[in-house]
Structures are given as structure tokens and as C-alpha cells.
């Protein structure tokens, strides 16, 4: 089973819920941090990494000894990622979509592929939990291909918990679309509610069952609960605004380690999700 933990708004507590749920469930679990633009689950899990894989995408490399400056590579490129100018050929790697067109049309076979590094995947473990995350190279414009790579480590024999990026755009859809259940973490504020509605809209289009965790649930107003009622969204857990929880978070500690009574609540949360998925 795959559970994706998402939210419309950022900073609602996705990582807190994902990491504490994973640690409560123990060694049956793998945790995939798909927020490849700023992964942070490792700051709480403290995994030992035993594998680092560099992810590359093919881009053209031109052999100027063979090139006759005919310009066919530039003509076929739909992304203006390679251009013949003066006595040279300039590839612009960050614009390249790796289609291979320039290589195919070069009559002199002057273009070959080289790998451009655009992120890494790291795999590790802690107390039997398998942990995988991706780190996008700073400055890259597109994250979904790296998220796909992180998700390719999904082990069907385990329970997979996915920590999704915030928002409702492509990276989030990529992180949710193969899930059996989406757990939306929100907060009872106007911003929380506004972005929750967007996230629920996306989950409904994907047609995946979902439920809510309301974080800092004793702040703000009742509007999130009213919305949940009206949309028939089950509220599976409420986490109060608690100084001890905030302190644990700020130190990189797990809530379930500092306040062991929370382990029971996270296990309960999982049982509720299981019941909804099997229903």
C-alpha cells in the first residue's frame, strides 16, 4: 500500500506526520521523501545512507573536428537548445529536453550524448525503516523526472509512505497519482483552508480516497471542520499547538520519541487509513 502525505499549503506538518507515522509503524515501512527541491525528512529520521546515485539526463556534445557548421542540429531543435553561430556550435544544456533530434540529423556524426547531472538519489535506513530521497540540483527548473526516480524505489512488499512537496502542481501530482490513499495535512487558518480546497480538488480528479490531519488544531477557527463535514472528508487525526511538539521539531527530534503517547495515536491513524482503503 502507498500512502501519500500531501497538503496544499506548505508548512502544515506533512513531514512531521510522515516521519512519525513511519517510525511508529517500524521496519515494515519505507519512507520516500519526494520533496526533491527541499527534502527535510532525513533531518528527523537521521538515516545511515548506504547508496548515492547520480541522476543524469542525456545532452549533446559536439566534436568540432567533425562539424561542418551545416546548422541542421539547430534547425530541428524545438527548444533552441543548440545553435550554430560564427565558427562554433553552442549547446544550452539547461534548455535541452533530451530528445536526441540533433544527434539523429547530424550528417557528420559529430554529436554524441553526454550525461548532465541534475540531481542525486540517496537510499539509507534507520531501525529497519528504508529511507529514500532525491535532491534536485540547485537551479534546475523541472522536478517531476527526479520524483519519478525516487518513486521507482517503491517496494510492493512494504508499506510505502510518500512525503509529497507542497502545492498542487506537477510535482505534487507525480507524488500522489499512484497512491492508494492521500493524507492531507492542513491547519485551521484561512490560508490552510484555501489551499486545502485546491488539494482536495486535485485528489478528486485523481480519484484517490483521502482524509485529513488537522495540525495546530486548537488555533484558528472552525471553518476547516465545516468544510470537511460538507465534503464528507474524514478527519483522521488532530494535533494540538503544543510547545513540546514544537521544541522536538526544532531540534530534529521525533514527536513519538519525546512524547511516547503519540505512537499509539499514529498507529490508530494508520488503522483508520487501512480501514478506509479496504472499505
Amino acid at each position: 500500500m502507498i500512502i501519500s502525505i500531501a497538503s496544499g499549503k506548505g508548512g502544515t506538518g506533512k513531514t512531521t506526520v510522515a516521519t512519525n507515522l513511519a517510525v511508529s509503524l517500524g521496519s515494515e515501512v519505507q519512507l520516500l521523501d519526494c520533496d526533491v527541491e527541499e527534502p527535510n525528512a532525513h533531518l528527523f529520521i537521521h538515516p545511515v545512507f548506504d547508496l548515492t546515485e547520480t541522476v543524469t539526463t542525456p545532452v549533446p556534445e559536439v566534436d568540432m573536428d567533425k562539424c561542418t557548421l551545416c546548422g541542421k542540429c539547430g534547425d530541428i531543435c524545438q527548444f533552441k537548445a543548440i545553435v550554430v553561430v560564427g565558427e562554433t556550435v553552442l549547446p544550452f544544456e539547461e534548455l535541452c529536453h533530451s530528445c536526441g533530434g540533433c544527434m539523429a540529423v547530424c550528417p557528420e556524426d559529430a554529436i554524441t550524448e553526454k550525461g548532465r547531472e541534475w540531481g542525486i538519489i540517496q537510499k539509507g535506513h534507520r531501525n529497519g525503516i528504508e529511507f529514500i530521497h532525491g535532491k534536485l540540483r540547485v537551479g534546475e527548473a523541472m522536478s517531476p523526472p527526479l520524483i519519478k526516480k525516487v518513486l521507482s524505489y517503491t517496494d510492493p512488499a512494504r508499506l510505502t509512505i510518500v512525503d509529497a512537496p507542497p502545492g498542487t502542481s506537477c510535482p505534487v501530482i507525480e507524488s500522489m497519482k499512484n497512491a492508494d490513499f492521500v493524507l492531507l495535512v492542513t491547519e485551521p487558518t484561512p490560508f490552510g483552508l484555501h489551499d486545502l480546497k485546491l488539494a482536495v480538488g486535485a485528489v478528486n480528479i485523481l480519484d484517490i480516497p483521502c482524509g485529513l490531519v488537522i495540525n495546530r488544531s486548537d488555533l484558528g477557527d472552525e471553518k476547516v471542520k465545516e468544510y470537511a463535514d460538507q465534503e464528507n472528508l474524514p478527519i483522521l487525526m488532530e494535533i494540538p499547538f503544543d510547545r513540546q511538539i514544537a521544541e522536538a521539531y526544532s531540534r530534529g527530534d521525533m514527536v513519538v520519541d519525546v512524547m511516547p503517547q503519540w505512537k499509539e495515536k499514529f498507529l490508530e491513524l494508520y488503522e483508520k487509513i487501512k480501514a478506509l482503503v479496504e472499505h
Partner: protein
Amino acid sequence: MKVAITSTGKELSSNLDPRFGRAPYFIIVDPETMAFEVVENAQNINLPQGAGIQAGKTIADHDVDVLITGHCGPKAFKVLQNAGVKILTGVGGKVADAIEQYKKGELDLAGEADVEGHWV
């Protein structure tokens, strides 16, 4: 000697367009005779990406020696530099006035791209 100016229109009295890659026209002038030709850049205006690169190629293919414009981003700068085109940035006003300023040596040579690359 050929000087290209990014322009909003097709005349020497037109206003200089401060954008390089997405300027609608390039006016290519011989500063001694003031004879000029107009090169359309319309095909680049709606490109999702690479407008600066393609505009740089257009300038290079017209054997331009000097480009006068408002701003120039990093990719266009690289193309123009490889083509041996001198780049003068930070210029505004009418196209004809920009040429006069150039002739008097009042314009500054750009040492590097002055704006960031941008994505849609």
C-alpha cells in the same frame, strides 16, 4: 560596418526596444551613410524559451559588428560573444539618437549579461 538596434518599429524615428530577444524588429544601420535595413524578429516573440539565443543567431547571421539594446541576458550574450558582436546595453530613446550617441562614443560596452535568464 553594421550596427544593429533593437526597435519597436521599422523607422529610425522609432523607439528603441529595451528587450533584445523579444524586440519586434532589428534595425541594421551603416553609421557612415545612415542606410538601414529592417529585420523582423516576430518569429521569436512568442517562443516559450530560447528567444535570446535565436535573436543572437539572427544578429550573427547578418554579420552585425555592434548591437545596441537595453538589456541582454546570459544566453544571448554567449551567442553574441561567440559571433564576435560587440554589445552596448543600457540604451533607450529613439533609434536615430542611439546611433548618434554611438558615433560620439557615448555608449558603454557591456562586460557581461545584465539581466538573469528567465523561464515561462
